[in-house]
């Protein structure tokens, strides 16, 4: 192989690397540098290796961090519970409606995220017919409400990130070799056993990808909590926004963002370890190792 040929892959990587450098590494560097500054808006923020910003940014905000985990986790589980059967039905049962149904999953994206969330604010407002029906069914107490409750925020997160769960699941299920399920049934597996022993393990990569694509953005989201939530429903994204825009404590906001990134990274690594790298990557190394 000539030297030139060997370099080809790196040239091909070039645009991607440049992109990452410009839009990921550079901003990260600036944010990291900002997180180590001290001062105030009036005196200016100067770089002083202010490591204390990191513990400071956590103090008083643990409640919102725990809440974010709970909200994002619940929303992810709900999205999985709704998305898996839906993706399964679209992949195997939809027949000629397959494309139409897929389109229906993606269609909401034609309207921006913000508008859709604001629309929910109207649908769920205290005097709306929907809430009236829920009250009549005793699902919501007579003087109760839906808007400005944790349930509204979780529902908003689930709704907004559902397509991110459905699409990888669908892509994965679509490729599933039906003959494997037939084979399982030939070997006297019940439908349930065939699903648990064949379909589910084979769709793990889709589940892992869907969970990551849903959980990570949901954890950092602040729009749903801001529009659909009320007092006592702020998530960590709202805290960072408030630190940045209202308190203008840029270093602490940057420090908190970094810590959340690290936290998510740890959680995701543990999750991938647990779910198996092979399931995530579908790579050959795993198979070789086994």
């Amino acid at each position, binding site marked *: *192989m000539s030297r030139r040929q*060997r*370099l080809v892959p*790196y040239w091909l990587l070039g645009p991607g*690397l440049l992109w990452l*450098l410009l839009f990921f*590494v*550079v901003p990260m*560097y*600036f944010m990291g*540098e*900002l997180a180590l*500054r001290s*001062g*105030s*808006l*009036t*005196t*200016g*923020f*100067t*770089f002083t290796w202010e490591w204390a910003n990191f513990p400071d940014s956590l103090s*008083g905000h643990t*409640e*919102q961090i725990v809440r974010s985990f709970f909200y994002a986790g619940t929303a992810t589980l709900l999205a999985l519970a709704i998305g898996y059967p839906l993706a399964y039905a679209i992949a195997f049962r939809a027949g000629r409606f397959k494309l139409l149904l897929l389109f229906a999953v993606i269609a909401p994206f034609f309207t921006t995220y913000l508008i859709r969330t604001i629309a929910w604010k*109207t649908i769920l*407002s*205290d*005097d709306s017919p929907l809430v009236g029906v829920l009250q009549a069914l005793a699902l919501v107490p007579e003087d109760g*409400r839906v*808007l*400005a409750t944790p349930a509204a925020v979780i529902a908003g997160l689930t709704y907004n990130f559902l397509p991110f769960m459905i699409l990888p699941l669908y892509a994965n299920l679509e490729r599933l070799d039906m003959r494997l399920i037939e084979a399982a049934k030939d070997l006297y597996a019940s439908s349930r056993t065939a699903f648990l022993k064949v379909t589910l393990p084979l769709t793990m990569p889709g589940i892992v990808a869907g969970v990551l694509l849903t959980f990570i953005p949901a954890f950092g989201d602040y729009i749903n909590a801001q529009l659909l*939530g*009320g*007092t*006592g429903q*702020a998530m960590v994204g*709202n*805290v960072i*926004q*408030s*630190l*940045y*825009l*209202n*308190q*203008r*404590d*840029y270093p602490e906001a940057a420090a908190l963002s970094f810590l959340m990134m690290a936290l998510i990274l740890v959680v995701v690594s543990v999750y991938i370890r647990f779910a198996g790298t092979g399931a995530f990557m579908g790579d050959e190394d795993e198979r070789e190792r086994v």
Partner: protein
Amino acid sequence: MRAGERSNGGATRLAVALVALALTLGLAACGGDTVGGGGNSGDAEVAKGGPVKGELTISNWPGYIDPGAGGTVAEFENETGVSLDYIEDVNDNNSFFGKLQPQLEQGESGGRSIFVVTDWMAKQMWDLGYLQELNRDDLPTVFQNLVPNLENPSFDPGRKYSIPWQSGMTGIWVDTSKAPDIKSVNDLFDPKYKGKVTFLEEMRDSVPLVMKAEGVDPEEATNEDWEKAIEKVKGAAQSGQIRAFTGNNYTEELTAGNIVAAIGWSGDASIVENPNAEWRMPTEGCVLWSDNMVIPVGAPNTPAALGWMEFVYEPEVAADLTEYITYVSPVDGVKDLLSNSNPQLAKDPLVFPSAEFQENCSTQDSPPDVESVSAAWADTVAG
């Protein structure tokens, strides 16, 4: 062979990483050393006057102007030939400042030539060196028609950098069909209205009202007084008594019927589309404030910006504005004009408040230690 390739690849990868690092550091070196700071050392740029033409961009609060073909924007465009981009993107002082601060720090105004911000924010921007000074000679109509009680505010004596847009009062909005008996800010803490009241996100509006209800004079209040009032609000937020902290959007909550009462501003009748909602002067008094037009550093076309200020200080124009937005006009002569054309409005105490009506009101003020009190308030709002 394979092994050789591997190590070679490793070397290339290392090289790429090093180049990336070098580039990053190089870029970083180009960045400024400090963020923020600056400060106004008294040599602020003076906004240039001149012929009124070209393009102009103004940032104001929602519902703060009469829209449409006969509206003030259209009239100004017809009269001067200026193409005016009027944006309603100020929903609360803090967020607006937070959004523009990085640009202002670089001496840019985001293309805008006028912002409309509240007294204390105008002062904060001035202190940071983000505003241009105004030359009295460029604004003859303004200084001729400005009402006397706004000529020398404590934050900007002699109006060096701020020209009032409208004034108003912070008090309580009440949906009279659902909560007719709310008369004091203390009533907002009544468990009967749990989850049905909102407070303003703006610390200098909400907290002084709570202090007044507790019998503390906000103009004399200590940090402890502020903190005590914030604690009270925090307790109510955590118990779910307060549904949300809002900017101007409390008007939407009132319209949608989600709340029965809100801390809000006196002139918002034009945007609260709920016939049962009315603004009430709390029994313990209100908070008085003005929103001001300011010209930021780096503002394009300052002659047209000054032209706009002159235009809206013509009593006829100001009367049209008052008729639509129903806030307190800073322009002399509006009441006389309206007593002919709209006598009912001319008698409205919210638009032309008498001294007795505002007897117990306090001017909007900041706490002695802004930084620590604001942090406590921010934690309450983002609970």
